[in-house]
């Protein structure tokens, strides 16, 4: 039936017909080209965004938990009688002591928009009060100078560590170590300088920030009589990614115990799990790229309908040719195969050009739009096979119509 000679001839005839109508053929393929290019570019952007999110969260550490006061449900008003208890340094100490699966724990308080001045130069920076344990959890490094000493941490010493950008703004290229600066008028000695980090974590940008001992924050800078030992966040690093959920459960239990919550009472704190967040955000990104792909594939569908239209016109236009072929001995399937092949070649050509164009667009967006794109082999293969499939689907009706022509009438057709 379908030996090589027939196949070769059918393809040759189809290519000839396509080549004979170059302009019309390229316009026909345009629909598929745009559709495939759109699918490839869109999924590349979607996948790029997803990979970007993963990477950002990975640098923040997927095995860290954030404990904060308040209700996880957030949103609306709660008229529950109980007051929300704030977190304290004692909570952090208890977690450090009790939770065996925790690697490192640090508590922190962030104060925003403080004026920091050295000599005539100044800047506005967020100030974080925390302990040296922060540097075990966050990938922030001391470039010059040192961490806080235990004595400084205990005694609420007036010392600070500067962020990379903060130091540049205040000291330009001078060495800030052991210099005194004023933060909100109070004198602090610079003991350390952080290297450039780039990413911010939990609303604190280390490059544009200043770090002081937690005790200093609690007793000097942000001191409030109504809440001694106040901390806003306790960050817990689990020993590994596998035990994150276990750590979370243990912290939850411990905190309920410490806050003396009855079983019927809701938590008055909440725990953010980065691993969970990663999953959620990746889910959103995947949905996004699916959505983008779905929108783009509508244009593929429209392209397919375009091919069908042109093929129907082509069948009418070539009625006489079909008649000649039938009289000479072309069978129903010879005719069907010919028009089907033409439609498939048109859509495959469109597919290949579309893939090249889609990759080009994605690369262009990467270069000029400064957006991360990831071109996946699967999206290329998918577009290719989808365009072939469209060719078969939308080519069949015109091919069928051609084969149904009566040879006598077709030969007489002018």
């Amino acid at each position, binding site marked *: 039936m379908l*030996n090589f*000679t*027939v196949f*070769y*001839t059918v393809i040759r005839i189809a290519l*000839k017909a396509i080549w*004979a109508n170059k302009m019309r053929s390229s316009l026909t393929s345009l629909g598929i080209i745009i559709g495939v290019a759109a699918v490839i570019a869109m999924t590349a952007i979607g996948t790029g965004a997803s990979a970007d999110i993963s990477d950002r969260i990975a640098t923040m550490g997927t095995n860290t938990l954030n404990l904060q006061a308040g209700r996880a449900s957030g949103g609306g008003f709660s008229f529950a009688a109980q007051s929300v208890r704030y977190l304290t340094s004692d909570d952090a100490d208890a977690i450090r002591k009790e939770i065996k699966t925790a690697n490192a724990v640090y508590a922190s308080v962030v104060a925003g928009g403080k004026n920091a001045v050295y000599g005539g130069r100044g800047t506005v920076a967020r100030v974080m009060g925390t302990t040296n344990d922060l540097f075990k959890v966050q990938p922030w490094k001391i470039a010059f100078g040192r961490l806080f000493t235990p004595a400084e941490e205990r005694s609420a010493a007036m010392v600070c560590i500067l962020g990379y950008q903060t130091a540049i703004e205040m000291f330009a290229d001078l060495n800030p170590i052991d210099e005194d600066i004023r933060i909100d008028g109070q004198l602090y000695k610079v003991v350390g300088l952080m290297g450039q980090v780039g990413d911010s974590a939990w609303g604190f940008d280390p490059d544009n920030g200043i770090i002081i001992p937690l005790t200093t924050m609690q007793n000097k800078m942000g001191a409030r009589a109504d809440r001694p030992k106040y901390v806003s966040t306790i960050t817990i690093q689990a020993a590994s990614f596998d035990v994150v959920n276990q750590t979370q459960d243990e912290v939850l239990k411990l905190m309920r115990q410490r806050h003396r919550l009855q079983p019927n009472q809701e938590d008055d704190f909440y725990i953010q799990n980065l691993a969970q967040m990663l999953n959620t955000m990746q889910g959103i990104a995947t949905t996004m790229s699916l959505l983008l792909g779905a929108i783009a594939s509508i244009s593929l569908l429209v392209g397919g309908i375009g091919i069908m239209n042109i093929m129907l016109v082509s069948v009418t236009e070539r009625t*006489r*040719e079909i*008649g*000649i*072929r*039938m*009289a*000479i*001995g*072309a*069978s*129903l399937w*010879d005719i069907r195969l010919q028009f089907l092949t033409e439609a498939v070649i048109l859509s495959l050509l469109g597919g290949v050009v579309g893939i090249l164009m889609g990759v080009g667009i994605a690369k262009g967006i990467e270069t000029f739009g400064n957006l991360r794109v990831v071109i996946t082999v699967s999206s290329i293969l998918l577009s290719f096979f989808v365009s072939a499939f469209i060719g078969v689907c939308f080519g069949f009706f015109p091919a069928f119509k051609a084969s149904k022509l009566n*040879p*006598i009438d077709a*030969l007489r057709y002018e």
Partner: protein
Amino acid sequence: MELIEIKNLSKVYSLGEVEVHALRDVSLTIKSGEFVAIMGPSGSGKSTCMNILGCLDKPTSGSYHLDGIDIIAKNLPDLAAVRNQKIGFVFQGFNLLSRTTALENVELPMVYNKVPQEHMHERGLAALKQVGLSERSGHVPSQLSGGQQQRVAIARALVNDAPIIFADEPTGNLDTKTSHEVMSLFSRLNSDFQKTVIVITHEEDIAAYAKRVVRFLDGRIVEDKIQTPKMPEAEHA
């Protein structure tokens, strides 16, 4: 054995309420190697008869055997293979594929007969040589004269070694001189290659080349006579 044998053939077209009897109880036998001219005014049924004999259409009733094959028993789509292997068509309007070279046009019946690629060129060129057009194998129809186009069509009818050549008004679009050249070619194919040639025409001087003339009128055969054919003209390219 008879090459073509039709018995009591009728064809009725129903145009809404009206029934048109295109063929009424026609019986005809044609032996291998005959050169027959089918004549008759338009509406006489000769074209309908041609379509049925050419396996392009099926009769309403009657029997038709072609080279021993029961044509009535086959479906119209299945007749494509019969047309391909038993019949070569030559039409009034040449019916060559435009934008396609003479050689490729001639090769077309072999494409549908699944002839291997390597034999196609050889046989196609041989057929073109038979009609004296070897030099023009690479030309497309628009670059050929009417007579040359009709000769390409004849080569196409020959290439599959079909025993029968059906020519429907083959000279209708040609001038007198070219008409006689084409008819001479048919004569030679009949006498030198034992092809059975059936020509439909309404011109007496074209029918003169045939050995037998069958006349149709109102869907019936009114005359069937043997005649001395006009001799073909000397061959010239």
